[in-house]
């Protein structure tokens, strides 16, 4: 197999942030004295990555930004009736310039910052901009960000690995597919995801009958007629496994999970990073009025929506909703409102989404998709919780290590 090892899907780019400024249409019923002006920055950190296994998974240049733009436009429409102004600026940056880029946004008046980065950079950026800026994690799934590394000014609209793994686990347990063959990748993020599935199995009474590691040995992801090798290699890799109902792939690095369906030694369904996948949202989702949302996004961006777009849209809508209800642009006022009992937001997932006041994580349903349609939505029927069934997903209050919200 040949091919270049490193390929950047997005060039480190424009130091000049692009300000999308649309002034709210001044309407006669707007109160001119209420000068509520909200400036939101969208900061995306681009890492050198390999080409994806599937070309359907290529990252578009506007990933996250278009979702945020739709959220900003939604806010602008609502703001036009109330005299609230919303502006947003986007920056895509390499990791080494991320902090500088964030500070630049803050110097331009940004008090709300949506971050699309890995966990380490998300914390680094949040700490650098300081507690006066309200930050929203729209990408990093790391449980640690919701636990020991939580920050008082960092909210998480992206679901955690624990939430994603729990969402899938509930579906599998509901199906009574309780015997899992867990295959995890060899990179640190794959291990963290593997841990989330081990935790979910214990939590919901499933059994991991065997665990295997798929070593990432590098090399290019695709080559002409590479499927010939895959068809021979994957059955060999999965043979002689303990009897199992389902094969779970923990492969955040996108190395092997997509090769498992149809190639495993025993005919069993695949779930996790391939097959049936837990996601915050998906471009095919249509229930609960989502069709209109998808159409608006596609009209704006000319492509299908990805989870990062949904998360960014959600972050903007959280800000917009809090501004609408409080008539304020003060981050502290908005934060208090977001954590209070009155906050609620409709997000095309069938029930209102709210924030956990112990770690700033958004409570939300998780979709299960086969990449073509919505197969199911968790929490599943019968998984109860004294507060809300949504709290059966992810890290609950009694197990929280986060002190920042106390």
């Amino acid at each position, binding site marked *: 197999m040949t091919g270049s090892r490193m390929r950047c899907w997005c060039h480190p780019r424009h130091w000049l942030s692009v300000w999308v400024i649309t002034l709210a249409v001044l*309407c006669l*019923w707007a109160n001119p004295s209420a000068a509520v002006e909200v400036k939101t920055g969208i900061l995306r950190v681009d890492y050198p990555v390999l080409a994806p296994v599937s070309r359907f998974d290529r990252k578009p240049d506007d990933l996250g930004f278009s979702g945020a733009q739709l959220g900003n436009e*939604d806010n602008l*429409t*609502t703001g036009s*009736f*109330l005299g609230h102004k919303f502006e947003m600026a986007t920056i895509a940056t390499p990791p080494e310039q991320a902090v500088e880029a964030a500070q630049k946004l803050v110097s331009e008046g940004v008090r709300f910052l949506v971050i699309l980065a890995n966990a380490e950079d998300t914390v680094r950026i949040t700490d650098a901009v300081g507690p006066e800026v309200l930050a929203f994690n729209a990408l990093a799934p790391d449980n640690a960000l919701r636990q020991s590394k939580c920050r008082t000014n960092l909210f998480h609209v992206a679901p955690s690995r624990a939430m994603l793994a729990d969402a899938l686990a509930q579906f599998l347990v509901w199906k009574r597919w309780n015997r899992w063959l867990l295959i995890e990748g060899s990179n640190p993020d794959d291990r963290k995801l593997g841990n989330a599935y081990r935790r979910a199995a214990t939590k919901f009474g499933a059994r991991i009958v065997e665990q295997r590691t798929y070593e990432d040995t590098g090399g290019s992801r695709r080559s002409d007629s590479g499927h010939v090798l895959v068809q021979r290699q994957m059955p060999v890799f999965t043979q002689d496994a303990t009897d199992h109902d389902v094969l779970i792939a923990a492969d955040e690095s996108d190395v092997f999970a997509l090769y498992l369906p149809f190639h495993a030694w025993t005919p069993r369904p695949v779930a996790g990073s391939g097959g049936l996948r837990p996601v915050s949202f998906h471009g095919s989702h249509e229930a609960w*009025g989502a*069709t*209109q*949302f998808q*159409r*608006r996004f596609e*009209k704006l961006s000319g492509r299908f929506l990805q989870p990062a777009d949904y998360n960014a849209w959600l972050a903007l*809508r959280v800000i917009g*909703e809090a501004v*609408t*209800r409080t008539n304020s642009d003060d981050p502290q006022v908005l934060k208090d409102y977001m954590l209070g009992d009155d906050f*609620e*937001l*409709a997000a095309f997932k069938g*029930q*209102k989404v709210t924030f956990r006041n112990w770690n700033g994580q958004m409570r939300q349903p998780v979709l299960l998709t086969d990449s073509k349609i919505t197969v199911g939505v968790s929490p599943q029927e019968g998984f109860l919780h004294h507060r*809300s*069934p949504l709290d059966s997903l992810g890290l609950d209050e009694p197990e929280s290590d986060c002190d920042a919200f106390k």
Partner: protein
Amino acid sequence: MIEQIKTTLLGGVFAASLAVASGYVSDAQANKVYVSNERGNTVTVIDSDTWEAIAEFPAGNRPRGIGISPDGKHLYVCASDDDTIKVFDAETYEFLWSLPSGPDPELFVINPDGTRLYISNEDDNLVTVVDTVKKTVVAEVPVGVEPEGMAVSPDVRWVINTSETTNMAHFISTEDYQIKHNILVDQRPRYAHFTNDGALLFVSSEIGGTVSVINMNGETGPELETKIGFEVSGVQNEWLQPVGMRITSDNEWLFVALGPANRVAVINIPKREVEKYILVGQRVWQLDFTPDEKYLLSTNGNSNDITVIDVAEQEAIKSIQVGQLPWGVVVAPN
């Protein structure tokens, strides 16, 4: 629980049979009931005397909002996936013509003289006003994000639109089609309905789980008076999702379809309180009265039936199988 339901149903049917036997029904006129079946792409027609389905006809792709002209001649159906409103002869079910509606029409309301349709277009954040006689678009009114619920005030001064993502009721003047007031309500407002004296407007918020009560005669115009919430033991709060509504003409009772809670709430309007929950079919969506208001019909999307509710008794008396995924319902006028 099931036993209880059976008893109620049987009791109801028995009572209805008694009524028939005593000739009580004879003064009531039989009206056709039209049910749009979102998944079946049909309209089911039911006779309100026998409560039997008498016809089912194709109604375009994904029929949802449904209404009838005041003279009972024309049936209007939002064919959402065809991006039009289809007009059928209400007697022969013959397709007559389409009206321009903008993309993905979901709900509309007809003004009392039948000359205007006010349609919400979710994709374009517009309310489209259509002249039903000339079959032309009269006006397009920019509103909030994802317009949905529509209502016309009894004096025809106001057209109300609710926008699901902006979470507002917009008050559009019928004189110049400009928005004059906006009122914030809870998440995802789905439906709006006036009392017949025009004094109160109710707006149901599906995700917020409340019905907002708006006083139309406030000091500075329409103002939010209160919000009414719901509570059913054994049903998670998340599933108490108010959608379709109907009000008795004495303005005493508001009936609210509660979606996945499978119940219709009965609200005492003077007290602003829920007095009862009526168990109906699954995913109850829209409601309509028979013209004499003896019966209220609910569409139950996930059980493919409609429930007949005795309005005076506030009890479900019968369910009738219709097509796949019933969405809207309208009863022909006398």
